[in-house]
């Protein structure tokens, strides 16, 4: 496994001049696991998309270093496994075909044995040749884990990892996480208590915003304490 280092410096994202979040700073390397929490609309998904390189930050820098070499943005996807409700598989193809196309588009050799192993792990092996269209939402979610793990990425990003999963599916996800934890970087976007118990660090976007706001207020109130009549205007 390659050694990876992911760094976020003062990352800010705006949509139509609305600041979603600001001054996000953290560093992650192999063996680190982190969860990003916050209420709906706090920007969890936006932040993980920025980390994955599919969205660019308004300000700030994301750097991904692999084996000491800084990666270009267009190479990020090679090191990232991403599971999220907004990432869909191709309905008209079977699970097996989906994985085959994914491997080919990535430009890697399709390892049928490893694909079978993955499909077996997520309990889709018996349905591997059925079109994804016929799958339940839980099965589709499980297939996304095969999509994320197929290229053996160093960074695993799971946005709402439990979505649509039953108890058994959730257990599989946790075992995948525990297994990869020692060597990989794991990033979760979730509010689920049980998910949070599987990571070492938690970043709460709402608390961060509150903190930044109160710091700002303190600074501005410090300024307004200076004798000045201009303020009233």
């Amino acid at each position, binding site marked *: 496994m390659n050694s990876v280092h992911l760094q976020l410096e003062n990352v800010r994202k*705006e*949509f*139509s*001049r*609305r*600041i979603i979040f600001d001054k996000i700073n953290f560093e992650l390397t192999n063996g680190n696991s982190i969860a990003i929490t916050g209420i709906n609309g706090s920007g969890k998904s936006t932040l993980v998309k920025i980390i994955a390189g599919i969205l*660019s930050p*308004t300000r700030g820098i994301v750097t991904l270093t692999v084996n000491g070499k800084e990666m270009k943005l267009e190479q990020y996807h090679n090191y990232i496994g991403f599971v999220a409700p907004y990432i869909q598989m191709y309905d008209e193809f079977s699970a097996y075909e989906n994985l085959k196309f994914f491997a080919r588009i990535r430009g890697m050799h399709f390892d049928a044995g490893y694909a079978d192993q993955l499909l077996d792990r997520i309990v889709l092996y018996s349905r591997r040749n059925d079109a994804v269209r016929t799958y339940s939402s839980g099965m589709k979610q499980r297939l996304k884990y095969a999509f994320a793990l197929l290229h053996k990425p160093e960074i695993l990003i799971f946005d709402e990892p439990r979505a649509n999963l039953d108890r058994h599916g959730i257990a599989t996800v946790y075992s995948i996480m525990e297994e990869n934890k020692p060597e990989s970087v794991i990033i979760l976007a979730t509010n689920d208590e049980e998910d949070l118990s599987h990571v070492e660090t938690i970043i709460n976007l709402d608390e961060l915003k509150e903190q930044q706001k109160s710091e700002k207020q303190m600074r501005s109130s410090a300024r307004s304490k200076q004798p000045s009549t201009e303020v009233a205007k």
Partner: protein
Amino acid sequence: MKGKFWKIFLGVWLSIVIIVGMSLPMVPSPQSFFEFPIIPGLDEKARIIFFHVPTAWIAVIAFLMSMINGIQYLRKNDLIYDVRSSSAAGLGLVFCILATITGAIWAKFNWGAYWNWDPRQTSIFVLMLIYGAYFALRSAIDIDEKRASLSAAYSIIAFVTVPFLVFIMPRMMTGLHPGSASDDGAGPVVDFSMDTTMYIVFIASLLGFTLLYLWMYELKVRLGKIELYYESLRSHD
């Protein structure tokens, strides 16, 4: 362009251009400085050059400015460039319509029909379509950043394809427009030469209209900046 001086200066300048352009007599062979030569085939209708050509010129300049600011947006990711780009395009559309209408009116009296698919008419029509498409695209995208980058991309694509028209049109249609290369037979035969006085008035008009455009552009950009600032204030609570 700050201060009252510029506004007054521009007002006076354009007034002089309009009065001079409209009122100086046109004679077959100009003797004094205050006379225009008669251009055969155009006669008094030649006066439109002082108003029609500057509007067409600005329609093109605005397109160029819009595209350049679009490139700047893609490079720097700052919405202010999008404000500039769309402001230029907005004014460009207005001047493009003005150029088309003044041109069509002139064509009615000179060529007998409002529209003849002359290469210049086709070109200004295509430019108008591009402006129209640009704003249709803009109104169909909700997120400011996405709107900015997509409309910038579109104006760049339009900018690189339009020059092909210059190559293909002369092969397909005869030019009627004064000053066009294939100006033979079909239209009035025009020796499109202005004398010094006419040329000075023409340049003065071009300059005046360009300044007017820049002033309007400046105002639009300032308004756009205020809107951006207002939006950001509102979202910070």
